[in-house]
Structures are given as C-alpha cells and as structure tokens.
C-alpha cells in the first residue's frame, strides 16, 4: 500500500466479506482481523466469523442441498467447468493474491492458480462418472434386481489447508460439491483472501447460492460449532492441526459425522497438492444406497424367450 503522491491515483481497496447463501455478508459479530503478507505487511481486514455465522452457513448449505444433490450430474459438471472458466478469467487477480499470501514469485503463484483452474476441470469431468465407477449392479443369488448407487452425504464442513492458499482450498472443495454435497468452507486462517475472492467466482458461475459458503476467521473458533452441529453430516479436517483435529473428531462423534482426517504436513503420507488427486476425496463424502427389486418370472414360456 504505497503512499499517494501527486499525479498517482489512490487505489480503491476491497472490503473482503464472507460468502453465505449466495450473498456477501459481513460477520454478524462485526469483527474483522488483520491479514498480512508473508513479510508481515498489512493486506486487508478479513471478516472474523462467529459461531452464529457458522450456524447461518449450515442453514444455507442445508437449504441448498436438495436442489444441488437433485441436479443432474451433467448440470453439476457444467457448473464446475464454468467455475474453472471464471477463475481463469480472473487469473491475474488470483496470482497477485496468492503471491502476496504466500510470498511466492509471480511464476510460482501463476503455476498454482493454473493448477487450481485445472483441478476444477478435473472434478467437472468426474460429476457424471462417479455413479458408474463407484456404483453398479450386484449379482445377488436370487431373482432380484440389485443396484448400488453413490449419493452425496449432505452438508460437509471443510477446513481448508493453510497452504497452498488457492490450490489447497480448491482441492478440498471441488470434490465435495462435485458429487452433490453442499459445503461450509473455513478458509485457511492466515491467508484467507484467495478463499474470499473465490466466493466472487462461485457467485458468478451459476452455482446456486448456499452450495458453497465461505467463512474466514479463527479456524478453531469456527470449526468447533461446525463439528458439534447436528445438521452437519461430514467434516473434512484437512486444515486442522493434530490437537484440534482430535478435539473436532471427538465432537463429530455426537451425530456420527463422516470424518476425513488431516494428512501429515510433511514426512511420509504428506499431502502433495500438485499430485494426481485420485478419487479418495470424492468417495470420502459419499453414501452407497442399494435398492432391491424382485425381477419376477415370465413363467414356463419365458424361459425359452
């Protein structure tokens, strides 16, 4: 933020807001916190979401679940691809935000943004393949038609990893909504600005309001009411450290949320966000429904066609 001087134009700063139910509210608490770049210089004030904001986000996500899970897989794929298009269109803005957030060089930040766009494209293509790959007919030993179909779990609370600030959050968010879940996304605490700006991309991508809700603030403060919330069906703990993850997983047991535990930050099994994402994040928030029906019989004449 350079000082204004004669002949230069004073920039218009952006007020970063939450993204809940398709709208951009401030935190109901009125609180903000300072977001700084990697060298400690002030970048912006981000909303510091409260328990109430978290609950409002769950209500919005639940409201959106019926429509989003009931949309055709083709339609969801189209919308995820549209998100990729919108993100690509705002590439420069995200490169700047990612570079600021993580202290990356421009080329490295650009590579991350490109990877994030590509990740939306990857998951856009998955929406109408999941049912075939993970479901199917079962050859039961009897006169029954028996079909297993994957279905979305419901409302998923997602704790985004701190870094990579954009690729990490896209990598955890896209698989959740690709299959028809709705999400309450808690942005990485230290570098939330790319997540909040992503809300603007989502809002202009034909994604119904409430399918994704983005909160920023203190992760532990927002995550606790989400983990204990009786109308949240699943919890992705990727952005939690080991102590917080244990506490949240314990709270999540109260209504038997499906829990995806965090991967180690380093060492064996560490998350590699640039690697092929595989399907584990898609299947973590799926239920399998199996439907039986008698096949009946055509009688004696039916056996000979």
């Amino acid at each position, binding site marked *: 933020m350079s000082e204004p001087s004669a002949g230069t134009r004073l920039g218009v700063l952006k007020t970063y807001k939450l993204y809940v139910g398709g709208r951009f509210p401030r935190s109901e608490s009125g609180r903000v916190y300072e977001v700084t770049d990697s060298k400690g210089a002030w970048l912006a004030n981000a909303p510091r979401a409260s328990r109430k904001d978290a609950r409002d986000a769950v209500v919005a996500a639940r409201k959106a679940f019926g429509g989003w899970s009931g949309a055709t897989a083709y339609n969801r794929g189209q919308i995820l691809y549209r998100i990729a298009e919108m993100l690509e269109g705002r590439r420069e803005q995200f490169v700047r935000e990612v570079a600021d957030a993580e202290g990356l060089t421009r080329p490295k930040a650009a590579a991350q943004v490109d990877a994030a766009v590509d990740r939306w494209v990857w998951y856009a293509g998955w929406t109408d393949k999941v049912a075939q*790959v*993970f479901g199917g007919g*079962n*050859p*039961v*030993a*009897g006169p*029954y038609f*028996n079909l*297993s179909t994957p279905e979305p*779990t419901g409302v998923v609370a997602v704790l985004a990893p701190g870094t990579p600030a954009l690729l990490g959050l896209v990598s955890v968010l896209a698989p959740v909504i690709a299959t028809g879940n709705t999400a309450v996304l808690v942005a990485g605490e230290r570098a939330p600005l790319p997540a909040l700006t992503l809300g603007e991309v989502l809002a202009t991508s034909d994604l119904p309001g409430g399918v994704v809700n983005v909160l920023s603030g203190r992760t532990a403060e927002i995550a606790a009411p989400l983990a204990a919330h009786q109308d949240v*069906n699943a919890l992705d703990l990727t952005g939690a450290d*080991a102590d917080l*993850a*244990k*506490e949240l*997983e*314990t709270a*999540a*047991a*109260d*209504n*038997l949320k*499906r*829990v995806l535990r965090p991967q180690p930050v380093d060492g064996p099994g560490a998350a590699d966000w640039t690697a092929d994402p*595989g399907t*584990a994040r898609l*299947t973590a928030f799926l*239920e*399998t*429904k*199996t*439907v*039986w*029906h*008698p096949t009946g019989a055509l009688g004696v004449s039916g056996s000979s066609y």
Partner: protein
Amino acid sequence: MTTNQTKGKKKQEPAAERPGTAAARPGRSGGPSPLFAYAPAPESRTVVDIAPSYGLFVDGEFTEAADGRVFKTVSPATEEVLSEVARAGAADVDRAVGAARRAFPAWSALPGAERAKYLFRIARIIQERSRELAVLETLDNGKPIRETRDADLPLVAAHFFYYAGWADKLRHAGFGPEPRPLGVAGQVIPWNFPLLMLAWKVAPALATGNTVVLKPAETTPLSALFFADVCRQAGLPRGVVNILPGYGDTGAALVAHPDVDKVAFTGSTAVGKEIARTVAGTRKKLTLELGGKGANIVFDDAPVDQAVEGIVGGIFFNQGQVCCAGSRLLVQESIADELLASLKRRLTTLRLGDPLDKNTDIGAINSAEQLARITALAETGEAEGAERWTAPCDLPSSGYWFAPTLFTNVTQAHTVARDEIFGPVLSVLTFRTPDEAVAKANNSQYGLSAGVWTEKGSRILAVANKLRAGVVWSNTFNKFDPTSPFGGYKESGFGREGGRHGLEAYLDV
C-alpha cells in the same frame, strides 16, 4: 403386563406355515386361531456337542482368561445354562492383539490365491457343519431353527465364498493397483446374527490380508468359538483369527488398544458413538453398522397380500431384533383399514415357541435385558397414547418371550416411532401423498433401511431416490446377499459391508 403372562410352554397349536408362503391363511380375524394342529417337529440337538466350558481362542489355542474369569451363556428359550465361557480382560486383549500382530506379516505376504484357498476351505467346512452350527445358533440365540437353517448359515457360507474370490483380485477392485491391508482388525459384533455378523467381519478382513481379533456378544459366544474350531480344521495359521468372548469392557479394551489398526463394530448407536470418540485422533480406520428405524412404505396400489408378508418378514424376522427391521409401517390412509385387518389376521397365524421346532415362526428374545427393554418401550408407547394390539398367543413358561405387537394411532412424536425397539413391535403411521411418506420416512436420526410397496415402477424409483437410507427394498424386504453392500446413512453408521464396497473398510485407501 399384557403380553408376558406365561402359560404352558408351547401347548398351543404347534402348527405353522412359513411366512412368505400363502398357504392356509385363515379367513377371519380375532378369536382363537383357527389353524391346523401340527405335531411338534423339533430339530435334533444331538448334532451339536456343546462342551461344559470354553476358553478364549488366542494364537491358535484355547486358553483361560488371564484373571480366570468366566461367564455363563444360557439358552434364552429355556434359561438352561449351555456352557461356561472364559471372559477376556485387558491382559487377554493385549495377548490376542499381539498374536494377531505377529501373524500379520506372513498372512499379508501370502499370495492372494493362497489366502483365497483358506477362505474357500472355511466356507466349505461351514457348509459341511451347517446343521450343527444352525442348531447351536438357535440354542444360544433363541431364533427359530428355520431362520438359522435357511438364512443365517447359507449366508455365512456364501459370504466366505464371496470374499474368498476377492483375495487374489484386489487390484481389480478399484482401489488402486496394489491396495494394502491395514494390519490388525479389532471387531466387535452383536448377538442378533452371531455367526453371520462374524462372517461379515472376518471374511473381508482376511481376504484383504488383515489379521483379526473378534469379540462376540456376551449372550451369544458359542458359534464364534465353534468358528475357531472351523479355522483349526481349515489349517488357518495361528494368530490370524483370535476370538475373545466377553462383555462391553472387553470390547472397549479392544477398540482402545494402541496396536489395533482398524475397528469394525456392529451394535447400538450409543456404543457406536462411544467408539467413534475412542478412536478420534488415532490412525485407526473405523466402520460402524448401528441402529435403525426402517420405514416400510405401502402405497394404495400395492398388492396387499404380498405387502403383508413383507411387513411381517420386515419386523418379525428374528423377533424384530434386526438393525434394518421395518419397524415403522407407513401406510397410505386410503388402504390403512384393509391392510391392518389383513396384517392382524396374518399375525394371529404366527407360531411362537420352541425355536428348535421346525414350524416355529417366532423364537425367544435373546436375553432378559433385551426383553425388559422391549417391554419398557412398549409400555411407553401405551403411556404416550398409542393404541396397542398384541397377537393372541400363549407364551412359554420359561425363557424370554414377547408376542408380536402393533401400535396404531402413532404419530412421529411418539417414542415408539422414534426409538429403535429391537423387538417384535411395529409402529403404524399413515400418510396421504408420496411427499408426505418420504418426509416421514426420512424424519429419523437413523438411515439404514426402508421398504417401498407399489405396483408403479416410476413411483418406486422416485421414492427410493429420495429416501435417505442405505438399503431400500422395493416390493420385498430383509433380503441379504454377500454381493450387495449393506450399511447406513446418518446415525445408522458409516462404511459398507458386502460386495466390492465392503473391501474398502479393510484396505489402506
């Protein structure tokens, strides 16, 4: 108590028809049951030789508990003590987990085709000993021999056969080119289908290369101990399967053991939540198969006779002690009277009594505790204003019995419409539109099973699509198959057992 007044044991007409067949249905309701009198047809007990005492099965040997504790297992139909069984404590859990850990490297390194052959052997031996195991299960559990003989045991053998075939084909199962086993699986199973639940747990665990420590329920330990003998006959390497009879404290110790890599539990939702808290923050992979309050939805165009058979099978199979029981009947208002009349007529023909009698439809409740729980919930139903109807049948003088019971005038707020009773008690609610049926069906903390009865195909698909339940039976109920994934939504648990899906719980994916 209106239903548990006791009379002479099995003195009433000892005749029966099989639910599911339409033979000899009497044409009127109420009054004394106008059934044919059948002579008693007991299955012989001599096919099974129950020893006076059993040990724990650890590292290929039967041993006493470290602290020497034992407990008695009784026949719920007669309260006769069947045997005395060693009760595993924390030290025994440690020993068994150690044995399983030592067995793991060699077992997981075996070529899949070799592991498969062990499982095929086990499947075959179970088939050979199936009558013996059926009688044993009926004695220890109280369920009718017709069910153990025709449902439990064939499904047990089929489950081992099915997963045997997967052992050398795991790289084709869709979990990557080289899916790895997890290690030691700690498994805790319930008393309602003792040997079948063992099969659901042990077969996929072994096929994928894990080793097992399994705790059977305290009221039904015997078939698991006989299974240990099956493992010995099959030549299974020592330590691959360990069986630890015991109570809840044994299960808790097993679940909490730091050297267990995988926990699988079937049982109540309350215990499932406790287990989820125990494994929080650990590396242990968890699958839970918990309670249910299945809605059985009958539309006005359903074939009433078939629907009645499905409703009866849905809630009175295994005395209603089934997690996926269709314990809430949702019937379209326009046919409610007709359907209920038919249903009551059918229930008067059910034979309750000696589980070993081949004509028995309704056996004993598994334990005094469970009977007390069912009785208390039924009394709550009455106290809350639901209307109770109990099938007219005499109950034996000893053992634990509960006559088939219906509640009508039930609303969604009633305890009998919300809580899992796990007994032969059906709550009847009505609806007018498909939307209302779906809303009521989904209005539950559970999401394990549901039934849909209608002749209209598009309605089946539309309703099944909207139900939040892991298994939907349309125009049928309570069907099981090893190839068909089973498990719940919501607080009915997570993970699937059966089919390709069932492998995931035991693989590092």
